[in-house]
């Protein structure tokens, strides 16, 4: 149970529950530079993020996982900026999993918001040491020196010294007092804020990038696993005769069975270990396994859908209350209601999960594409029953993550098999494994009822949300939405409506539930923003104007006053208020970009949605064209983001584009289940956005802001699907309350 407790704490931390989340800059770890060991000894390493080698190369250690958000580039920009380094003389290393870096769990859109200040301090510390070293040699004051393009310059005399000439002295200097270290002023930023190209570009161009699937270790076997079709069932009999006789197959092993709660532990199943991936895949196909049954074996997502929708229409447990909704609905001129449903989804990163492990005695090394290297480290130690400090997690590039790879079950599978086989093993998840045995984005049912006054103003908003909670992955008792999920676009509803009542209802899980890019914001924003459009039409108002009215005047919303438990994504509400002024500003900008006000004159079908998540504000306008057959396409999308201070303008744009297209996939995809097992298997029956579905053009505007940094990776996803559905309504008159949105929609 102790390991479970550790995982539980970890989970709570990820959900932003509890205290002690924010790592202050004062917690910057000092001195111990020990990154991935792929480089020569550093000659100057004032902290775990920065080192300068003898030849003056600035080595930046990226402790967050790279999964396409270009965090490696961003972290390098931040450190290089503080040192005013020459970009050609900077090298980026990838950190192993190690608590000395602080939190490494790359999810929740927090790599920049939680690290910008501490990385600036890390860089500024190194810069100060270099200045002190130069000043010592010149017998001048360090304050009279500056870092300029990989040199320290004495401003008055113009004397210069290259970093390479200073490292040996700088390395001997005592660490400066914290008060002395001053990061650059914003006006002096050289790299931060700029659209600098990905540092991994050349490797991608050449095909030399290394992902978890690409790792090879000498003498390793390749493993493919047949996992139980129904969660927590186990093999009752295994006939592996044929598999064992196949060429290249070396071993067949049954993994320990899993039981509730799932945690991050492997699901069990039967593994075939072979000389190459193909042989392992063929071997697994040849297995004849009969599986046990359990209470999940009857799970049918169609039946369960009706149950969830029925629960959503009932009265739930109140989690936020403003005014008197009951009374306001009774006295309303008009009431409108709708029940929403969204199916399970799989993250389906292009790289299915993979990990390679070598176990020697009581120590283990694992190379894997994980979002969460410290959780992988803890889990491998737990599964192998070895000390956690004996486990090294080498983080490869991730071929997409989207939340799937924050659960390190695949790393534990590889480690366990390597321990049993007494040989290095790489576990390769097939696409079928990824789609059928994931940690799914949960199903969701919601019911909203609103009251309108005679003039169309909304007077009441009554919203109930029902979904199997992510907490069910960590606790068998969890059967109602957690505060960590309610905070995601539900409890923080910003609408300026005098009477609001928000409720939650019970739902049982039958699959493992996990995070997916922007998590509960996806279905909450869908319901709230398509329903806002429903209200606009019921009121006979323009959708944008009505939304502006719902948002109301610029103000900071205090949810505590209304009995709501809200942790603001783990960051202080004083620093990151719920600011309706910023919400309104992105809405105004995106609709202006889309030429919203002339849409009827120009016969364009537009839909809009605006949503705050992960402390950033995004408005999205989608344009659709629907042909006679009812098939629709998206010629344009317009996005305005206010993420406060940003590090790389080009990659923020890219996240807006990609986040929007991910939102599109969320709207058209569906995972279903019958007899307890997931129905879909691969990309022919699990629909994800392809080029022909995606917007042909996406215009992105980034609000210039010196507010503290918000999230970027997730916020562009939630508003896309409701904006699309609203545009489809404008074009066809059809409302879509139940997802997925069909690719053909008859007018």
């Amino acid at each position, binding site marked *: 149970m102790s390991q479970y407790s550790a995982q539980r704490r970890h989970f709570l931390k990820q959900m932003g529950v509890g205290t002690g989340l924010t790592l202050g800059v004062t917690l910057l770890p000092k001195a111990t530079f020990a990154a991935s060991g792929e480089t020569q000894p550093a000659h100057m390493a004032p902290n775990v993020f920065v080192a300068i080698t003898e030849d003056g190369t600035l080595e930046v250690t990226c402790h967050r996982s*790279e*999964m*396409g*958000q270009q965090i490696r580039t961003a972290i390098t920009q931040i450190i290089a900026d503080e040192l005013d380094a020459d970009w050609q003389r900077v090298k980026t290393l990838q950190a192993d999993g190690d608590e000395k870096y602080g939190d490494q769990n790359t999810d929740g859109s927090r790599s920049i918001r939680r690290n910008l200040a501490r990385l600036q301090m890390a860089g500024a510390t190194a810069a100060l040491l270099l200045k002190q070293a130069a000043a010592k040699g010149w017998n001048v004051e360090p304050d009279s020196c500056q870092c300029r393009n990989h040199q320290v310059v004495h401003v008055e005399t113009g004397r210069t010294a290259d970093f390479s000439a200073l490292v040996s002295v700088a390395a001997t200097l005592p660490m400066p007092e914290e008060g002395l270290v001053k990061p650059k002023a914003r006006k002096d930023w050289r790299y931060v804020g700029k*659209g600098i*190209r*990905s540092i*991994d*570009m*050349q490797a*991608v*161009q*050449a*095909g*030399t*990038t*290394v992902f978890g699937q*690409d790792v*090879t270790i000498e003498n390793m076997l390749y493993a493919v696993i047949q996992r139980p079709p129904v969660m927590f069932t186990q093999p009752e009999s295994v006939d592996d005769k044929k598999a064992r006789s196949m*060429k*290249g197959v070396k071993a067949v092993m049954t993994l320990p069975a899993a039981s509730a709660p799932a945690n991050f532990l492997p699901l069990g199943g039967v593994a075939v270990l072979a000389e*190459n*991936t193909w*042989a392992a*895949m063929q071997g697994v196909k040849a297995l004849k396994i009969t599986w046990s049954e359990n209470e999940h074996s009857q799970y049918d997502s169609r039946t369960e859908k009706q149950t969830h929708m029925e629960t959503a229409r009932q009265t739930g447990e109140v989690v936020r209350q403003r005014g008197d909704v009951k009374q306001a609905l009774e006295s309303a001129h008009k009431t409108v209601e709708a029940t929403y449903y969204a199916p399970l989804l799989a993250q*389906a*990163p*292009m*790289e*299915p999960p993979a990990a390679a492990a070598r176990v020697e005695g009581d120590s283990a090394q694992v190379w894997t594409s994980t979002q969460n290297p410290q959780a992988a480290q803890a889990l491998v130690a737990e599964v192998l029953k070895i000390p956690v400090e004996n486990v090294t997690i080498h983080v490869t*590039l991730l*071929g*997409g*993550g*989207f939340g799937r790879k924050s659960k390190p079950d695949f790393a534990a599978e590889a480690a366990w098999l390597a321990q049993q086989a007494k040989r290095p093993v790489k576990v*390769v998840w*097939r*696409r079928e494994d990824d789609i059928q045995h994931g940690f799914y984005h949960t199903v969701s049912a919601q019911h909203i009822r609103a009251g309108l006054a005679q003039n169309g103003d909304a007077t009441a908003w009554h919203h109930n949300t029902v979904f199997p909670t992510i907490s069910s992955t960590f606790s068998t008792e969890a059967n109602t939405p957690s505060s960590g999920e309610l905070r995601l676009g539900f409890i923080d509803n910003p609408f300026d409506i005098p009477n609001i009542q928000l409720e939650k209802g019970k739902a049982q899980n039958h699959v493992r539930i996990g995070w997916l890019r922007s998590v509960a914001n996806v279905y909450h924003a869908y319901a709230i923003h398509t329903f806002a459009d429903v209200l606009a039409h019921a009121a006979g108002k323009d959708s944008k104007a009505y939304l502006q009215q719902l948002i109301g005047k610029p103000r900071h919303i205090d949810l505590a006053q209304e009995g709501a438990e809200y942790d603001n994504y783990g960051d202080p509400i004083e620093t990151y208020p719920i600011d309706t002024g910023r919400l309104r500003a992105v809405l105004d900008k995106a609709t202006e970009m889309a030429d919203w006000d002339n849409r009827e004159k120009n016969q364009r079908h537009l839909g809009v949605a605006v949503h705050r998540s992960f402390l950033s504000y995004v408005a999205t306008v989608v344009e659709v064209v629907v042909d006679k057959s009812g098939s629709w396409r998206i010629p344009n999308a317009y996005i305005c983001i206010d993420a406060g201070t940003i590090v790389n303008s*080009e*990659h923020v744009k*890219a996240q807006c*584009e*990609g*986040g*929007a*297209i*991910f939102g*599109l996939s969320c709207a058209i995809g569906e995972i279903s289940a019958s007899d307890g097992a997931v129905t879909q298997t*691969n*990309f*022919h029956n699990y629909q994800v*956005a*392809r*080029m*022909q579905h*995606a*917007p*042909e*053009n*996406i215009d992105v505007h980034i609000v210039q802001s010196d507010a503290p940094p918000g999230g970027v990776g997730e916020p562009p996803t939630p508003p896309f699907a409701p904006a699309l559905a609203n545009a489809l309504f404008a074009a066809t008159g059809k409302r879509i309350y139940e997802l997925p949105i069909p690719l053909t929609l008859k007018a």
Partner: protein
Amino acid sequence: MITFTLNNQAQKYDGDPTMPLLWYLRDEIGLTGTKYGCGMALCGACTIHIDGDATRSCRLPMSAVQDKHITTIEGLDKNNAHPVQVAWAENDVPQCGYCQSGQMMQAAALLAKNAAPSDEEIAQSMSGNICRCGTYPRIRKAIKAASKESQS
């Protein structure tokens, strides 16, 4: 014995003839630039060129490559100077990068046959290549840029 040319070098293979080319490339000779994404020719991550045609290597058995000329991402241009590679960099196309070998190989094959593809032709040719990061608008731009480049 199966003989063929891989990235301009003669190769021989005498293993399982049913093994798809993808696993020969990745597991047997360590050319991991060609990626596994689905194993069913549904996602395009494993796209390579067979005699210049874009082909999904995950469904192509080794028995079918006799006498063929195979090009993988590693052989597209040693200096990353193919117009598609250049355009990919200039448009900062990749996010995670995993699907991009396949995307670039598909785009290079398209441009070799059709130097100035229309929007529709681009979408049609690229529809078999999935990118979960959502780089499609940039891929589109990069193909147009590469198209201009290869025509000038």
